[in-house]
């Protein structure tokens, strides 16, 4: 082979390699784009909800409360009749069937929405006001274009009569879209138009805080001890191997552990953020110890020697010099560990977080859900409205993860010191 041939071969090998690299990056990006597009196109509509303009007449007789009522009197009042009367005026329905069909176009919480308006403004008694009453899930999906109205009537949840009402309302501009506050404020619900991630958000928040409070100090102290103080012998080698193994244990095993120890033996309350936090802490512990030890190891020995040589004790050299230098790496490792914990579903399913929890937990020992479990629950639900809610919740979860990972990178770059 001549020199030119060899050179040519070398260049083409390099070009081939670059092509393979670019191709693999392109494929990876393509999958990300497909995933994100899929989630966004399905999920973004969940942030808006459909409502119907209804003229509500607060009839004092139907309300059965005096003029200038107290707050208690309003909140105790029965607004069912007011709600039904107002809804029936939206479209001229006749007969029980048609009336029921009309009422079914609205959320079952219509009464509560009307009551809220009255509580906000008690002067409305005896007056008429136009309120945006949330539509039922079916109308919501129909209005968002997710509902196949071309299906034969017997295979649809919406009857032809209801479609007729809907079309009339659209023509009259009575159907509006507003921001879906329920999605952020409410807990889970059987009715998709009322279901929200409020409970899951609070549950996830409590779980992660408990996980952080338990795992961070233990992991940091364990890594400092193992890396800086522990003698290097068979026992510490054994511990190190075990920590690495524990980090690779499937998370569902931690769920089984928690089920047996925390729920069956210690009898902590089931499906609570407390148990979730402890379980996630157990799972996260080795995942924090590993980066934590790595960042301690990355501090050059010369820094330790420098401190020891001016007469610092071992403890001083570690806590005055090594730990501050390792802190950025430690923090970013912790945040990434927590981000993993935030997205963890399997162990939480085992400790009962799949329970259907409507109320938003006010303390960590109330039954609650969490974001990934909520995704799992909704992905299994049959109602059409839960499809967009599932995707929207994935979006929420992903955005939390992205924020946490950016924070980790930011902390590392901002506070990392160079020693050369």
């Amino acid at each position, binding site marked *: 082979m001549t020199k030119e041939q060899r050179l040519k071969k070398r260049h083409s090998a390099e070009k081939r390699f670059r092509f393979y690299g670019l191709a693999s990056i392109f494929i990876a990006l393509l999958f990300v784009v497909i995933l994100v597009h899929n989630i966004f196109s399905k999920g973004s509509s969940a942030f808006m909800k459909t409502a119907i303009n209804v003229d509500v007449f607060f009839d004092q007789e139907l309300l059965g409360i005096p003029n200038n009522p107290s707050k208690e009197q309003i909140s105790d009042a029965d607004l069912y009749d007011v709600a039904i009367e107002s809804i029936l005026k939206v479209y001229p329905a006749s007969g029980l069937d048609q009336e029921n069909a009309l009422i079914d176009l609205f959320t079952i919480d219509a009464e509560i929405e009307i009551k809220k308006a009255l509580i906000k403004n008690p002067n409305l008694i005896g007056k008429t006001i136009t309120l945006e009453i949330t539509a039922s899930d079916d109308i919501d999906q129909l209005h968002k274009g997710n509902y196949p109205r071309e299906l034969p009537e017997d295979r649809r949840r919406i009857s032809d009569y209801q479609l007729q009402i809907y079309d009339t309302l659209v023509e009259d501009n009575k159907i509006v879209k507003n921001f879906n506050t329920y999605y952020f404020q409410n807990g889970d619900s059987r009715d998709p138009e009322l279901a929200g991630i409020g409970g899951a958000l609070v549950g996830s928040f409590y779980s992660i805080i408990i996980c952080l409070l338990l795992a961070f100090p233990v992991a940091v102290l364990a890594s400092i001890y193992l890396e800086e103080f522990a003698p*290097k012998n068979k026992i510490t080698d054994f511990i190190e191997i075990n920590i690495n193994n524990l980090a690779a244990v499937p998370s569902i095993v931690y769920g089984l552990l928690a089920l047996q120890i925390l729920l069956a033996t210690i009898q902590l309350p089931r499906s609570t953020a407390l148990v979730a936090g402890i379980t996630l802490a157990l799972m996260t512990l080795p995942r924090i110890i590993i980066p934590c030890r790595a960042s301690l190891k990355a501090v050059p020995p010369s820094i330790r020697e*420098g*401190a*020891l040589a*001016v*007469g*610092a004790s071992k403890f001083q050299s570690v806590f*005055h*010099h090594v730990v501050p230098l390792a802190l950025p790496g430690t923090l970013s490792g912790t945040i990434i560990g927590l981000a993993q914990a935030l997205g963890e579903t399997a162990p939480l399913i085992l400790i009962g977080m799949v329970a259907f929890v409507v109320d938003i937990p006010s303390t960590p020992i109330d039954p609650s859900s969490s974001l990934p479990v909520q995704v799992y629950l909704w992905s299994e639900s049959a109602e059409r409205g839960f499809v967009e809610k599932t995707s929207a919740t994935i979006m929420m979860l992903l955005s939390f993860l992205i924020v946490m990972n950016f924070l980790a990178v930011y902390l590392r770059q901002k506070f990392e010191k160079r020693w050369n």
Partner: protein
Amino acid sequence: MSDIKIRSKNLNVYYGEKQALFDVNLDLNEKEVTALIGPSGCGKSTFIRCINRMNDVIDICKVTGNIEIDGIEINDKNLDVVSLRERVGMVFQKPNPFPKSIYDNISYGPKIHGKGESKDELDEIVESSLRKAALWEEVKDRLDEPGTGLSGGQQQRLCIARAISVNPEVILMDEPCSALDPIATAKIEELIDELKTAYTIVIVTHSMAQAVRVSQKTGFFHLGKLIEVGETEKIFKNPDNKMTQDYITGRFG
């Protein structure tokens, strides 16, 4: 003849199975510079690391025999190494300033030993240490800048200032100029010459010329044994031992 400051008797050092020093008997005089020379891996650094018990850091390292400073045994499990290292400062091969400000680099030692209670006292210690290390004029306007931002030679003088800051009696220098250019080396050597009026200095060096320039006494190590020790002039002009002769004339090493 000066007084003996440090005396080692039958000093043996083992790294695990491997013996690094064999029965080293060496006396170091007060307020003098003693140079230790010898080929790589001959045990010079191991020897000076015994003087401030720096070998304690290494798990597998075992030291037997005696080292006395001012007649007091320091190779004693009950001895407080913190106060020993306050008396015996050390400068390393590669400059290793803390990644902190110049000021904090110097004030750290005094602070942990409870010297310089007030800010004024600390300021004074920082200034005098930097002056003694001939660095003050170069850094006085940027004491709050990171010590790692200085040039290599300045960093090494910063480390010398750091060692001086706790007012030690002995300063150990482990090849302090090996990472420096000739100009920076000349400055450090000048500095060593000045420092010997106040401190007992032990310097490990690979440069014969440096040993001649800075030291009064020289010890030659080979394969963990102290082969010969004596006045620097005598060692380099008329050594007793054939091996010393061969080493200083560059026939091996």
